[in-house]
């Protein structure tokens, strides 16, 4: 194939054949290389997390991908096609003006009105000085109870939205809590005052769209009641029929109370994992 090799002579066949062959090889190589490059690029542009979240989101069951406006009863049925990112959702405003029809009733769980809620069961509470506090919501607290171990991020580290904010371990299950908002970690709350993060958001909290993607008001009730329903479905003993989602009060430390359940699935669906 190269000069100086006995018994080899070039023919037209070689030229055609080899050029074809190398064209193919090049194409294949190019494909791989470009895929690798794009990956690297995504990381450089800090968009890797976004990609991950979006492909995770795509894998979520239909029931978990409901639009907030459906939860609030503004529309009959709508699947979110924007990975819960209402900040860049052009449909948002046109639905947001509609009146909410969701019935607001007691959930037996404490969801204060002054907070915003993320589908990964975290709340966001604006503090003075544009700092935001992020913590686990009541349902998550009830499910997990007291975690065996918690791994909080470093102070000063940057969090992307939907990135794993902190990890908890309970009965051998790993729980990844998704960050409801992007920003820099400025403070960490320990076990005694309940695990929470203090975050200085990338866009200031005063920005109208800064927290638009988080649930509030009636949406929360719609969402939580569905979550409770799902929880009950998942936790019920195989033989008993599903009891109505009448907001039966959750026992704290559910994981210890019902150890035999398939917690792997329950936690995954609760914390938007695939």
């Amino acid at each position, binding site marked *: *194939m190269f000069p100086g*090799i006995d*018994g*080899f002579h070039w*023919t037209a*066949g*070689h030229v*055609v*054949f*080899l050029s074809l*062959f190398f064209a*193919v*090889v090049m*194409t*294949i190589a190019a*494909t*791989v290389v*470009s*895929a*690798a490059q*794009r*990956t690297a*690029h*995504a*990381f450089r*542009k800090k*968009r*890797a*997390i976004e*990609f*991950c979240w*979006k*492909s*995770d*989101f*795509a*894998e979520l*069951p239909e029931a978990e991908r409901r639009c907030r406006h459906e939860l609030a009863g503004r529309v009959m049925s709508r699947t979110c*096609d924007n*990975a819960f990112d209402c900040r860049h959702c052009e449909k948002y405003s046109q639905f947001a003006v509609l009146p909410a029809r969701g019935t607001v009733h007691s959930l037996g769980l404490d969801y204060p009105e002054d907070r915003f809620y993320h589908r990964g069961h975290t709340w966001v509470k604006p503090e003075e000085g544009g700092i935001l506090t992020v913590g686990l919501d009541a349902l998550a607290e009830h499910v997990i109870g007291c975690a065996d171990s918690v791994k909080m991020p470093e102070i000063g580290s940057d969090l992307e939205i939907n990135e794993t904010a902190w990890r908890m371990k309970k*009965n*051998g*299950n790993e729980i990844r809590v998704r960050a409801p908002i992007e920003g820099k970690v400025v403070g960490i709350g320990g076990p005694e005052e309940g695990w929470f993060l203090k975050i200085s958001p990338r866009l200031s909290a005063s920005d109208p769209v800064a927290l638009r993607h988080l649930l509030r008001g009636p949406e929360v009730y719609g969402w939580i009641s569905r979550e409770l329903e799902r929880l009950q479905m998942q936790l019920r003993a195989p033989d008993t029929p599903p009891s109505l989602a009448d907001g039966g009060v959750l026992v704290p430390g559910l994981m210890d109370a019902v*150890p*035999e359940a*398939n917690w*792997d*699935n329950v936690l*995954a*669906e609760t914390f938007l*994992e*695939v």
Partner: protein
Amino acid sequence: MASAALTDSRWITRGEERTSLSRFLLWLAPWTVLLALGAYAAGLCLYFGLNQTNMDNRFAFGLWIFLDLGIIALGAGAFFTGFLVYILKRAELRPILNTAVVVGFICYSGAVGILGIDVGQPLRFWFTFWHPNTHSMLTEVTFCITCYLLVLCLEYIPILLRNRQLRKLPSFLVFEHQLHKLVPVLAGVGTLLSFFHQGSLGGLYGVLRGRPFAFRQGFFIWPSTFFLFILSAIATGPSFLMLVTATVEKVTGRRLVPQEVFRRLGFISGSLLAIYVAAKSIDTLIWLNVTSPSVGFAPWQYYIYKPFGTPILFVEIVLLGLVPAFLLTYRKTAMRRGWLLSAAVLACAGVLLNRFVLTVQTLAVPTLPFDEFLQYTPSWQEVASFGGVIAYGVIIYSLSYRYLPMFAPSKGENTNVSGD
């Protein structure tokens, strides 16, 4: 308790019901034994040389070449489905796509593995790339198969990376995401390659001027078998996919793909098979009446040797060609799953018989007037390595089925991920 016992549930795609790990291992055990036996036999052949086989100077090709041609033909479903989905945009076939890729990967890697044993000097595998003789169909086959195996690996990676644990690593997931967007390119390349080497495999025998039983005239540098092989391969590939899926459904007792997909595959397979049978019949007539006599061989003399009598022609063309083609396309039978699957079995058997006739009968039939008809029975080493490849396939598929989202709806359909 469940957490206490040895479990791999965290590796199984969420929402997929899979049998317990112990039962799965129990299922794998026999196959692993077979695979080990095959590996041992292959080792013998590599260490002591091909005298371990029952091949000889007259029967220079044996069971292995038949295996290669057979599984590569059946593996054609991979590139063809890819072609249908990505190039012809037949989205309804998506559910079968992953299976197609995995099956293709198994078939091709298996074939390449066997080829590695089959040559007398495996250490010199690279010579073909080094001193390529472009007039040899085998060169074309070698080049294309190596490239296509590469392509299949690349198509397999995205499926692999979508495993529940692997995807937790952001870099994997992003790479998978990026690669997946380029898969259509690969599908295109794969189609090109496959068309060529499926054909070249047919050409392999069609060009044998010295073996009038296999020799065919053709178009430009390609004998007619070149095109017949492509046709038969793409005709039976879908049938084989259907069979694999149906088998998995039987083993797992779960419905994996909608019946509609089966019917669709069946129809594609059937109509292509019909075309193939027509072409094959014409080719056979030309061969019997023109090609063969022109080099001094009267057709009847090929078929005076038992068990290779004229019935084999009938079986190949009618029983395993025309009949399944009809069953797969005719509405009434195509609606009935039972008919559909048995037709698919016939179709696959047909392509296998065709490869068998071309590889084995060609060598058995005498050329010189004082030659005698030859017998050949493979040695246990040959059979064992054959079984090893089968076992390898079953194991790879089982693992993929258990740990990868083979039939789970792939992304892209239900949401459009905005790229960079």
